[in-house]
């Protein structure tokens, strides 16, 4: 079943991707953090390396992931996400750490 998932990104990533506001990606299969980010990078290839390191694929250290108000940064990237995310009712959040200066 094709699912349409909404993704909220920091402003700088929206600028790089040339979009405004949240974006949607379509997934065929399990809706997980990994599948969302894979789809996001396929749809917006200029974002490769900006959320996950190019080589290691690891999350960049100043970024975290939230789903339905819960910090899922340190959970398995292959855990199924809540139905609210899978249905597109709630966005999947990529959040940048707050820093001054």
């Amino acid at each position, binding site marked *: 079943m094709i699912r349409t998932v909404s993704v909220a990104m920091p*402003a700088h990533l929206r600028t790089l991707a040339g979009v405004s506001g949240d974006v949607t990606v379509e997934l065929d299969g399990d809706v997980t953090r990994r599948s969302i980010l894979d789809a996001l990078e396929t749809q917006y290839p200029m974002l490769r390396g900006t959320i996950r390191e190019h080589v290691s694929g690891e999350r960049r250290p100043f970024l975290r992931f939230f789903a339905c108000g819960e910090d899922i940064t340190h959970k398995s990237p292959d855990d199924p996400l809540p139905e609210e995310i899978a249905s597109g009712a709630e966005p999947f959040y990529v959040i940048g750490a707050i820093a001054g200066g």
Partner: protein
Amino acid sequence: MSNVRVLVGTRKGAFILTSDGKREKWDVSGPHFAGWEIYHLKGSPADPNRLYASQTSGWFGQVIQRSDDGGKTWFQPGTPAGETTTPDGMPKGESNKFVYDDSPETGKPLTTHQFYDGTAKPWVFKRVWHIEPSLDDPNTVYAGVEDAALFKSTNGGQTWAELPGLRGHGTGAQWQPGAGGMCLHSIILDGERIFVAISAAGAFRSDDSGATWKPINKGLHSQYIPDPNAEVGHCVHHIAKHPSNSNVLFMQKHWDVMRSDDAGDSWQEISGNLPTDFGFVIDVHTHEPETIYVVPIKSDGEHYPPDGKLRVYRSRSGGNEWEALTKGLPQEKCYVNVLRDAMAVDTLDSCGVYFGTTGGQVYASADSGDTWAPIVRDLPAVLSVEVQTLS
């Protein structure tokens, strides 16, 4: 009449300053890439409208930007503007991908360098500090990166490959970071010869277009390292060379201003009467190979001009005898720094000299440094300054 285009990288974006040959009235465009650190941007000598920029962020990593119209529009080279897929199916993030070559076939399985405490740390790519376009091919460009290595692109920045002979020549495991990180910050192209400098490893030379390398640090003396005369480990801040004078190099080291007359095989100190020989920038007059410029900074612990006076020092004798250039520069209560890539010279008959400060000022002199005036006063902290002379 010729024009000049000054390319300024700052902590919060890039700015492009343009003027005619008089260099009195300036147009300012920017910020480009607002909010991002722009460590360096530079134009191709072979095609002045081809610019490359290093856009970086502690959050989102490295982005390489390219302009083919002199900075009016920009795009990621692997991601042409307006296209969702490249015709050849290239993954578009490739232009931002810098992967160390540790393969036994082309590189060497060198995987660690020294950390500040002497322990071994793996090489991890962080950012591009310096971009150096080829002298004769707009699509060939070099990138000096942190952790220190030299990369090359031959397709206009779409993809990058390491020149692994530098890290793998034998001393790489002894390199260590300076306070700003272990960065390759200086690249000088001279035919088949390439010079680079790394903080804190030293200067290196290749005589075969980057295939093989050797350290060129004989004569450097650094009291802050265990062996002050070591083959590597010196904190070189910047090196410069006059285009027509292939064997003469000038260096601003952590402390000491140095010169070499044999392409780096040996160095002699030329600090002479400078008020302090700590500093970051050094550059050479376009038409006078023995006229050089530095901006003395008080000390390694106090990164601002001595006595609160911003002074460029010029030597017309290749070093040792220096004169302070102060006209138009603040001579009281000035506590800015001038970082290592933040000085440049144009090629007009009356040589223009430019530098940027951590206080956001970019100063220009249209008369070889005799007099100065600010082009802009309130930019974010300036990381780099380059200038193009346009016909």
